[in-house]
């Protein structure tokens, strides 16, 4: 009985292998046809990609807050009452940092941003610190700036237009912008390490 069972098991086993063998033989007879068809399709498709499809990455006509796109224009009043436009800084590397005085990571990363500003401002680096004033208090903002000894422009987004334009979902949010006004990198959340700022700014300045 035991031997009969083992014989049956062996038969089932062998028949399943034979089915797979037939499948394999099917492939074996036509490997060249199948693989050649796939490779020919791939070559034709790559040719189409080269000559028919538009090149990727050329998205600078759209002004949206994403890497590779033109940075949306900013026109805000500074803490001193001056109107500051982002387009005024074309030709310089710009860091837009959107922050609030109640936001702990914003507070933590500000000294690092100030250090980088001190180090690279003469090389053409600008910081535009946009305060989300619509969710902040102007007295707290003034105290924050004084306590942290911030010397870069502090812009007041009293209506929240910039937060909306830059689709800010978390504070702080930072945007590294090239000399051509293109967003090079978006960093959502924080605090950003000084090493991160150093690596990105020096790279954008070509140092």
């Amino acid at each position: 009985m035991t031997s009969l069972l083992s014989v049956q098991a062996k038969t089932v086993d062998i028949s399943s292998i034979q089915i797979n063998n037939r499948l394999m033989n099917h492939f074996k007879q036509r490997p060249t046809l199948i693989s050649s068809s796939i490779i020919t399709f791939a070559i034709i498709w790559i040719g189409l990609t080269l000559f028919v499809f538009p090149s990727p990455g050329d998205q600078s006509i759209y002004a949206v807050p994403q890497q590779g796109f033109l940075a949306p224009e900013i026109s805000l009043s500074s803490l001193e009452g001056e109107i500051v436009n982002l387009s005024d800084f074309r030709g310089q590397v710009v860091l837009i940092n959107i922050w609030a005085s109640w936001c702990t990571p914003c507070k933590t990363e500000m000294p690092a941003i100030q250090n980088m500003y001190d180090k690279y401002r003469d090389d053409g680096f600008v910081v535009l610190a946009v305060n989300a004033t619509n969710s902040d208090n102007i007295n707290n903002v003034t105290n924050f700036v004084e306590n942290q000894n911030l010397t870069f422009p502090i812009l007041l987004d009293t209506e929240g237009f910039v937060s909306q334009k830059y689709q800010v979902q978390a504070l702080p949010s930072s945007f590294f912008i090239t000399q051509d006004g293109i967003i090079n990198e978006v960093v959502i959340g924080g605090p950003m390490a000084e090493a991160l700022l150093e690596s990105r700014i020096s790279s954008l300045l070509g140092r």
Partner: protein
Amino acid sequence: MFPILNVGPLAIQAPGLIILVGLWVWFMVNDRFAEKFMINSEVLSNNFFYSLLLGLVGARIAFIIQTPRAFLDNPIAIISPNLALFDFMSGILITILVFLILTQRKKISMKDTLDAITPGLLMFLAFVALSFFASGSLYGLPGKLPWSIYLWGTDRHPLQLYYLVLFLLGGVFIIQEIKKDYPQGTIFFLGLTIISLITVFLEAFRGSPSAMIGTVRIPQFVAFILLIISIRNIKVDKTATNVDSYPENISS
């Protein structure tokens, strides 16, 4: 697009969370298929975990080597949790290398191991595509289609969703095929063929910046090379196992 999940006072980075879930799914799927290839699932999971850990450390070290000046004034930043301070490409290469070394050291069949992790790899790639959808990166070319999505100023091909769907379908196909008795390594090269074919095809719809040499898109070119290698290896494996003589060997 949903880069941030606001849970009470917490702002969770959705793309990172999706990648973590994807890795967990990959672990689970590996466990499921390890037994079929007579691999100890615990050993496989450990190898996988240590490779990822060393890959993460390697990604940070590679970043430091590339930008040492950034860390000279702030050596504490070496242990910073900032994801932007990792070189992910180096991390992936180190993870693969460590995984191969560990597999060899534990004397597990390399081909069986690669076969066992292939279905999970396709599932993981589907999660990666979802994470790109969450962050809004790897977006498609502008195009007005019934299924276009409005993203970054215009209607576009939902490239991330194309990848997601095709990787899922590829994963399902591999899970069906893995049940059959193919020669060692075939499932892996079949998976690699699917991944590279999907990449060659979908790279044409890419709108986000891509590494280029002239007008040639590097990811598409690399995928094409991988496609040729994987197809060749599927063929080689089938002949190498000598399938015709297999039943005779068993019955004798």
